[in-house]
Every structure is written in C-alpha cells, then in structure tokens.
C-alpha cells in the first residue's frame, strides 16, 4: 500500500478517488496481519472498521463527512471504548468491557475517525519498554530485537509499522514521547487539563494526559484540536477555548526565543550522538534566525525521584479499585474477603505494578508522608515555578526526549532504577503540566531513530505545533 504520513494526503486521494476508505482499511488490516509478530494489537476491531469504512465512504461521497474522515486510528488499551474490552494490558482487567467511551474517543468518532483496534502497552501504563504487559512485550518495528519504548509502546509501534495513520496514547511521565522517540514517530503530551481524562484508566491522576502519536505534526495538531477542550465529566479539564491548531501551523514562521539546559546536555549517560544532534539542531535554529540561549535548571537530579514518589502515591490509591469484588479478575482460590483481596491482587497484577503500589502505599503511610509525599509536593511546586519562570522568558525549551535509543528486549527489565532513568528528560513536562512534543529528527549510527523534545508554556499548543512543524522529521 501507499504509505501515508498525513490525513490531508489521504483525504485528497479519497477526493480524487484514487483510493476508497474500505480499501484503505483493508490495506491497514493487511499490515496489521503482516506485523502480528510484533504483538502491537491486543484486539483488532476489523469487522467494525470495515463497516464503518463503508458508512463513512458514503458520507464522503455525499459531502457530509467529519473532519477526521479517512483517519484510521488505534487506541491504547487504557482508553475506554463503549462495549469494547479495555484491559490496561493487565490480567486483572483481562475480560473487562467498558460501559462508556472516553471523551477523546467520542470526539474522534464524531468526526468520523475509524478505530481499528486497541494497542498493547505496559500494564496500567507503568513502564518504559512495553515489557510489563500481561499480554507480552511489543517489538520495535524498526528492529524487532528492540523494545518500542513504553508505556504507549503498542501505539507508537502501530504508527511506525504503518498499521494505522495515528494512535492515541497516554503520557504520565513520558509514555507517549519516549516510545515516539524509540519508534521514530511524532508524540505529543498536551498541557495537563487540555484533554479530558474521562475514560482514561488512571495511573497517576495529576500527571496523566491522553495524546496523539502520528507521522506528522499536522496530524498531531488536528487530532489534538478534535479531542481537546472542556468536558463535564472531568472537572480537572480546562474550560479554556481550544485554538485552531491546524490553522496556526500554516501561518508564516515566527522567530522564537528558545532555551536549553546545559545540565541536561551534559548529563552523564546522554548518548553522544543524541547530544551532538541536539547541538546541531541548536546551531540550525540559530542559523534560521531564532534566538537560542542556555539557562540554568539545577533540578535534573530531582525530577525522577519526585516523579516516582508522587505518581506511585496516586497509583496506589487509583489501583485500589481492582480488588476482585465488583469487576475484573477474582482469584479462584479466594475463600473470604481478605483472601479475595490478597490473592486477586497478587495474581492479577504484574511485578512492576505491585512494586509501584507498594512504593506509593509506603510514601503515603503515617510517619512517612511528610518525608516523601509532602516533600515531593513541595519539590513539584518548585519545579513548576522554575519551569514557568523560564518559559516566561522563552517560548520553548529544547531538550532530548530520551538519554539513548531503544534498548534490546530483556536488557533492562531486571534493573528498575535504570528503567526509571529512561524518563529523566520527559517527566519534567508531567510534573509541571506543560505540553511537550517529541519529534523524530534523529537517526543513530546503530540504525535506530531518536527524537528531540520541545516544551512550551501551559496551553501554548498552537505555538508548539507551529514551531514543531518547521522541523524536518523522518517519520
């Protein structure tokens, strides 16, 4: 099939009748079938997608199709879709069906996107390699010996393997941007509160955001524009009007003030090629007439610990509902209330999820709360203030997405600390709530792609997309 990298190309071909939507869906389904070994999809909604394709094709022909007509999209398996299974890649929700659709899903469907399936991910979005899935690891389509990153590894791989045009993921500490970097696609973590979390299975409520993984900035902008905006079902979702992102990316280029942190670039463990690529990018931006300066941000060593203290605390509470009583997995060996809890949760959750529940329970416990959770909140406030202060002087912060390229499957699974440090450059955006995008601009000598990351002010997605769209990406 022809490889499309943005919806407008598909829509043009549909208009010119060089393709039909049912044909396009067939092609994607064929690709899904051919990449089955990558373990990308937990479920393919093939029949449904085919009949939707017929329906929307007719709408296209009669000229009343929605904005996303022609878009075939996958959703991460932690996003609810009415009367469809949603398992968060966990045994504990293996056969659970959602009674409602996430607001983001509703809005995609309303604009005639076709949801082709649900993608594998780390269990409850906890992980950086997609190896923590009850349904097995996902392979990186660029090189199947490597991880696709996580936790939205299936979504990134789905886009990279051309099994769909775009995918929704969720990003709590880098779960969209890191796999986007590892798989060579575009990944956006929107401003906290930009997109409703209604229907997103919670990992850490004050960090989680749904966002797109795409092959173009244009599609990321379009999807975000469709799914963003206030929602009565999520009171943490902002009522700020949604800008016209697709319009702003086509505006004439502006000259921006950009900063980067020396401490980040000089961070031990940052791959030299990634560092070099970033420095080259900076030079290019300067050459284009942007102002690029360094600033101090002496808190890099604090971001990962703070992130893990706070997210595990929230997770320990968010995951308490999976107790074998009302829904989900119940241990067949349970014989009373306590054993129902203990056995269902012990058997139903994987190791990483258990590790984070225990960490979170610990940091919230009487006697430890002040030393961990309360202190974590304070540090978060400082990080937020400092980041905001810097972003009041600069339009963007430029930084790596990941310290390295994708690693081999199985290579880091026994070293949780090393795995946690995968998030070192991505958690800042979640801790502070600002939007951040990873753009696939780098190609390593090892043959693997990597991204660079841009953060912008709260709710400045329009500027972020406009700037991001000026980069040459090799998705």
């Amino acid at each position, binding site marked *: 099939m022809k490889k499309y990298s943005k919806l407008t190309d598909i829509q043009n071909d549909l208009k010119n009748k060089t393709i039909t939507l049912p044909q396009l869906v067939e092609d994607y389904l064929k690709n899904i079938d051919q990449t089955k070994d990558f373990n990308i999809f937990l479920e393919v909604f093939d029949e449904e997608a085919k009949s939707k394709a017929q329906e929307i094709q007719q709408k296209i022909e009669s000229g009343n199709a929605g904005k996303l007509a022609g878009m075939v999209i996958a959703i991460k398996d932690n996003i609810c879709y009415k009367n469809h299974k949603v398992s968060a890649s966990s045994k504990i*929700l293996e056969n659970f069906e959602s009674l409602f659709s996430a607001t983001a899903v509703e809005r995609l469907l309303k604009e005639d996107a076709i949801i082709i399936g649900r993608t594998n991910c780390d269990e409850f979005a906890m992980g950086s390699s997609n190896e923590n899935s009850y349904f097995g690891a996902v392979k990186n389509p660029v090189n199947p010996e490597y991880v696709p990153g996580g936790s939205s590894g299936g979504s990134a791989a789905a886009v990279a393997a051309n099994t769909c045009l775009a995918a929704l993921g969720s990003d709590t500490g880098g779960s969209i941007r890191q796999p986007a970097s590892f798989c060579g696609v575009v990944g956006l973590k929107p401003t906290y509160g930009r997109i409703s979390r209604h229907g*997103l299975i919670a990992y850490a409520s004050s960090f989680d955001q749904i966002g797109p993984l795409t092959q173009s900035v244009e599609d990321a902008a379009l999807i975000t524009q469709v799914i963003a905006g206030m929602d009565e*079902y*999520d009171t943490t979702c902002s009522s700020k009007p949604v800008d016209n992102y697709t319009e702003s990316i086509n505006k004439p280029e502006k000259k921006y003030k950009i900063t980067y942190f020396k401490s980040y670039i000089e961070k031990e463990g940052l791959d030299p090629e990634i560092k070099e690529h970033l420095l080259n990018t900076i030079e290019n931006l300067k050459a284009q007439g942007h102002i690029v300066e360094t600033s101090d941000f002496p808190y890099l060593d604090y971001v990962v610990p703070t992130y893990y203290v706070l997210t595990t605390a*929230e997770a320990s*509470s968010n995951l*308490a509902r999976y107790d074998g009583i009302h829904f989900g997995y119940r241990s067949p060996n349970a014989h009373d209330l306590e054993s129902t809890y203990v056995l269902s949760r012990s058997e139903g959750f994987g190791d990483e999820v258990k590790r984070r529940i225990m960490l979170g*329970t610990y940091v919230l416990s009487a006697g430890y709360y002040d030393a961990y959770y309360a202190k974590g909140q304070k540090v978060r406030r400082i990080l937020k203030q400092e980041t905001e202060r810097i972003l009041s002087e600069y339009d963007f912060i430029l930084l790596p997405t990941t310290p390295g390229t994708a690693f081999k499957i199985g290579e880091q699974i026994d070293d949780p600390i090393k795995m946690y440090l995968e998030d070192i450059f991505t958690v800042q955006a979640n801790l502070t709530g600002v939007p951040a995008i990873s753009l696939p601009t780098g190609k390593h000598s090892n043959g693997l792609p990597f991204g660079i990351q841009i953060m912008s002010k709260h709710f400045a997605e329009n500027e972020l997309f406009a700037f991001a769209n000026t980069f040459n990406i090799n998705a």
Partner: protein
Amino acid sequence: MSSIYDKYEAVIGLEIHAQLQTKSKAFAADSTEFGVTPNTNVSPITLGHPGTLPRLNEKVVEYAVRLGSAVKANITYENQFARKNYFYADLPKGYQITQDKTPICTGGYITIFPHTDNEKKINITRIHIEEDAGKSMHDQDPFNTLIDLNRAGVPLVEIVSEPEIRSSEEAYAYIAEIRKLVRYIGICDGNMEEGSLRVDANISVMPKGSKTFGTRAEVKNMNSLRNVQRAIDFEIKRQIELIESGGTVEQETRSFDAVKGITFSLRSKEMAHDYRYFPEPDLQPVFVEQDYIAKVKNSLPPLPNELYTKFTQELGLSDYDASIIIEDKDIALFFNELIELTNNFKAAANWINGAVKSFLNENALHITDFPLQPKHIAQIITLIEENKISNSLANQKLFPTLIENPEKTAEELAQENNWLQESDDDALLQYVEEAIAKYPEKVEEYKNGKKGLIGLFMGEVMKLSKGKADPKLANKLVREKLEQ
C-alpha cells in the same frame, strides 16, 4: 456515701454523620432515593469503573454552608478534597472522597438545654463533606455478605464536636439539638434508625478536677438516641470499673450491642487503619466566596433559637409554650404562620399545643399532613374572641368538623350547624327567665346567701340555649335577675 463512680468525670466527643438530602449523589448524577431495589442507583462512577472521574454536586457545598451558617462556624474559602484509603467490600473505589486538611467549616457551637439552668455551649471542631460507602448486609444470606451500592456516594457531612460533653444526658441533648437543626435547615431527615444520622462517640474518663484526659475508646453502631445514651453510660461505667480494679483503658474501637446493652472491642489501636489521606487529584479545589455564604445564609429558614426568642420576647409566650412549639420545625413554622393571622398569641399557642397536637397524636399524623391550615385556626380564634362561639363548643364541635370540611371557613360551619353564640340580650333574657322560673325555691335559697347556686341556673340557661349562650353575658343576666 460516695461511690467510685463519683470520683470520675467523663469526657465525650461526638462525631455525627448526617446524610444530606440532595437529589443526586455527591460526585455522580445517580439518585439518592432511599429504599429502592438494591444496586439500581449505580452508574459506572458509583461502581468505580476504570476511567470514571468524580464530579462535585454543588448542592453538597450549599448544604454544608447552610449547616455551617446555622452553627455560626467559619466557612473555609479554599476547599480541597482528599482521599481516605481503605479496603472494604462496600467501598468500590478503595477510597472515600472526603476532606482532610481543609474541612468546609471550623468552629461554631451547639447550645444544649437552651433557656434552662443547665444551658451549655458545645463547641464544634469541624464539619467536613464526604461520600458515604455502600451497605454490607450480613444477615440476608446464610453464606454470603450482600452489597448494596445505592448508598455509595451519597453525600454526608461529618460534624465533629470538641470533647466538651460530660454525660450521656448531654450527649443525648447535643445530638437532639443537631437533629433538630438539620431538620430545620432541610439538609437531612435526621432519621437515626434508617442511618441518615449516625453517631460515633469518643469516650474517656478522668478523675474529677483532672486536666488530663484519659485514654479514649471510640464506640460505634448506636442507631438511636436512646442507644447512644445507653452505650455511653455502659462505657463510662466499664472504664471506671476497669481503672478502679487496677486495669488500664485501651485505645480501641468498640461496638455497641443493643440487645445485651454492652460495648465490645472491634479493633485495637494496632489494628487501626492507616487511611493514607492525600489530596484528591481528580477534583479541583472549591472556593467558597463571601457573597455566596451571604446568599446561603439569607435563604435559611428561621432557626429554632431565633424562633424561641421571637416567641418568648415578641409574643410573650411562656418558656414552656415556646420550647414545645419549636421542638418540631414544621409545627414551629405552622405556628409562625398562624401568628401572622391573629394577635391572640397565647390562644394560638394553646390551640397548637392543645387541640392540634392531640389530633395529630391520636391520628399519628405529622403536621405536614394536617388537613387544616393556619388560617383555619386563626378563624376559630377570631370567632371565640368575638364571642361568637364558646371555647368548649369550638374545641368539641367546630374544630373536628372543620377538619372534615377544610374547604369551608370556621364561620360558615358554625353558622350551618347553628353553633353561633347568641349574644342577643332578648333571646338570652328569655332563657334566663325560664331557668329562674323553673326553680322558685332555689331562688329563695340563693337570696338567702347560697350564691353557689348560680351554677345551677347557668347550666339551665346553657341547656336551653343548646350551648350557644355567651356564658359571660348569661352569667351577668342571671345574677341581675336573681338579685332583683
């Protein structure tokens, strides 16, 4: 002789959970209706399904502010919600949304035994908003505990008192005052048996005059005012006897067994839950502005103490009459309406505390189901005042007949039934003469000083007039005639 019990003083603090009478739940649109089929008022939010988020019902804040205003508490400006984490089968999310560090009300007080020598202020520590858990039923099925989640998510306020209560009588009075108040301001039906008002008591004892509190036990599961009193009395006695016999009171949670009349240990301090409170990340803080508080305050109905003051000081009612009237909100409001329609406040109070209450008691009715309106009672009072009907006829005939025919006015009914008093001198004079003529020898006896005989002649006049004679006037005429 003083007993061991006299050496000690009890220290009691109460935590009262009042279920708010909002139409929908605290954080979901589900109905809060009581008594419907189990597990029918349960949306995915109530069930805690993955992906659901809470959404605050603003009525809950309004009701809490009503209560706070009524007890003169400080209303918190920035309200954070918090999660209280624990596992239980009737708690679908594994946590309860509540308030921890920023309760919506702090301070305020309740006056117990108001207007008596025992009057006492009990200070309130805090009032906070929280959601109820579901209900576990252990006695419906021989092998399983059944769970009804209709109640899960129903809004509550928890009212925490300072440990200033010193006896079970004070505790009883405090709860009764709170119950009266929440009913007055229409936020809770106050029904303890159905669990819409639930009380936990923290009880300790200390030697009289001591300033250091003893170790407290928390007693739960007392589902009536009477049981609260019994449980506290038992617990005080138990603790004193324990100390006197050389033991020490353990900090623990105890339950009241209403059948045996005892408390027993539920869990020790070591087994106490660590609730791991932390700010609820799914809800934005709620800011309660001053003008909002003012608006809520202005919408409050008159409170019992305000009515008491009005009734005693403005209307001149006795403490006793006023206290009885304010006991029930709806009766007080009925009366409050009635006094707008008549100036005879004493008569109004007598009618309410007399005939009206007797009727309600006899028929087991609440005043809201009473067929008559304040205007009917006012009409009766006016008829009596204008000497158009005697008090006894009004009580015995007119009032019951009016209840049967509330579409008529009192005067219409009195007219139809020919109960209107004859104050027409000529007609009356005729009865008087007839009565006197009937007993010539008694007239002589009267004239010889047996003045009590006037009752005989009056009785005869009333008989002849079929009760319609204005007794005052008749009395005057009989006397004049006899003394001619």
